[in-house]
């Protein structure tokens, strides 16, 4: 075949006008080439993306367009293989280097178009510039990693802070003369540890939810370790379903359990050495029930008698905070304190139903 002068569209095999129109108007940068890699047409999007004058393209070899940057050896050999039918380029990544410009990362796709005429094998080369997309993905990865590191830092600081508070309370308890004051400081220490237990669980939980079974078990182990001398005599039994709740809810529930267990240990077994405290929690949909029961001395008689477990007012306040109903009853033997929440309850006149 004789050499065809540049700048003239090859007339030996005229392309269908519709084909050229489709190529030129393609949204994605697209090149329409002959088997020997002469560019027949380039999409406007290609010319714009890669800053090549559209008039200089048709009839030029791929390696000659622009400033010759498209003469990438790898691209050339892949297109050759595509033309011969022995390969098809699918999402091949390649770097485009242009003088005094940063390299661009490209993803190229090539197809061989064959309508049966061996003289008319054509190639379609689609080029996508993914440089910015890749940079954004790397940035996102960096941010995710930085966030993970930051979270670990925060977790460490919180653990240290809680340690300081817990230790200071214990130190004060050791020094204080009055038994009553020491009791208060020990209680305060337990409350801090119950919050610390939530913190620990959150640091390892995936969805930011606290699994109540693990939490209450740890909480009771901690309370038992400091308050029960002989676990054969006094025991804490935890029965919880698979419920997992938000941190705030778990903190409130944990504080209620701490309060009720401490009070049971102080008041329920005054005239007996053996006893059992049971902590139960279960939920169905938006309804949940928490109960702390003991098999000790039971409720004191008379209306004026102080109600065990509720003396400090903390439990009432927390139950209210959780939109729960607090009930106190005889377990015969012993006492049971229940906080129950029914999702359908409308406790407030204003506001929509739950």
């Amino acid at each position: 075949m004789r050499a065809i002068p540049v700048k003239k569209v090859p007339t030996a095999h005229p392309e269908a006008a519709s084909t050229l129109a489709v190529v030129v108007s393609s949204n994605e940068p697209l090149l329409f080439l002959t088997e020997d890699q002469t560019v027949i047409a380039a999409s406007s999007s290609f010319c714009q993306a890669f800053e090549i004058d559209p008039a200089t393209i048709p009839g030029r070899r791929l390696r000659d367009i622009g400033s010759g940057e498209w003469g990438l050896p790898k691209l050339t050999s892949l297109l050759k293989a595509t033309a011969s039918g022995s390969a098809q380029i699918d999402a091949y990544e390649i770097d485009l280097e242009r003088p005094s410009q940063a390299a661009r990362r490209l993803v190229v796709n090539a197809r061989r178009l064959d309508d049966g005429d061996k003289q008319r094998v054509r190639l379609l080369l689609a080029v996508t510039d993914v440089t910015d997309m890749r940079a954004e993905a790397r940035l996102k990865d960096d941010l995710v990693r930085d966030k993970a590191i930051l979270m670990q830092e925060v977790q460490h600081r919180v653990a240290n802070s809680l340690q300081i508070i817990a230790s200071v309370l214990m130190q004060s308890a050791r020094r204080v003369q009055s038994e009553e004051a020491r009791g208060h400081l020990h209680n305060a220490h337990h409350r801090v540890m119950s919050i610390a237990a939530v913190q620990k669980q959150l640091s390892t939980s995936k969805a930011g939810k606290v699994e109540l079974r693990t939490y209450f078990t740890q909480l009771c182990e901690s309370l038992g370790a400091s308050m029960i001398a002989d676990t054969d005599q006094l025991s804490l039994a935890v029965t919880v379903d698979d419920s997992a709740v938000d941190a705030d809810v778990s903190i409130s529930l944990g504080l209620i359990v701490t309060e009720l267990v401490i009070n049971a240990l102080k008041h329920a077994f005054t005239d007996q050495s053996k006893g059992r405290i049971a902590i139960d929690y279960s939920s169905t949909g938006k309804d949940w029930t928490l109960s702390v029961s003991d098999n000790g001395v039971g409720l004191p008689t008379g209306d004026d008698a102080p109600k065990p477990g509720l003396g400090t007012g903390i439990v009432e306040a927390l139950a209210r905070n959780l939109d729960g109903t607090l009930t106190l009853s005889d377990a015969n033997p012993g006492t049971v304190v229940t906080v129950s929440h029914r999702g359908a309850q409308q406790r407030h006149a204003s506001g929509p139903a739950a």
Partner: protein
Amino acid sequence: MFKGEAVILIVEDNTIIRMSAVDLVQSAGYLALEARCADEAIYILESRDDIDLVFTDVQMPGTMDGIKLSHYIRERWPPVKLIVASGKAILEESSLPQGSRYFSKPYNDHAIADAIGRMLSKDAC
């Protein structure tokens, strides 16, 4: 042991936490020594031979963290017992020298005192 009392070396960079740990150890009836980092701890261990147990934090400034320090101490002074504490919720006890205990912060004072008691009584002949 020093004059009949067990000697515990506390390694912790946070002053308040270190003071509380000293208080914890003393209230349990032991002698407390303090170091702010691994280098100080090693210096103290080199200068006396009566230290029975080292109670160390993990995150510390300096050449070594608590985990590396615990391995170093096991290498050089095998009889010294080790307790490691950290802000991490979980640490593989397998990454610590054999027989050492790990507690996550905030630790329960009673639990630490109990652990010290048990570890020290193990080598009472």
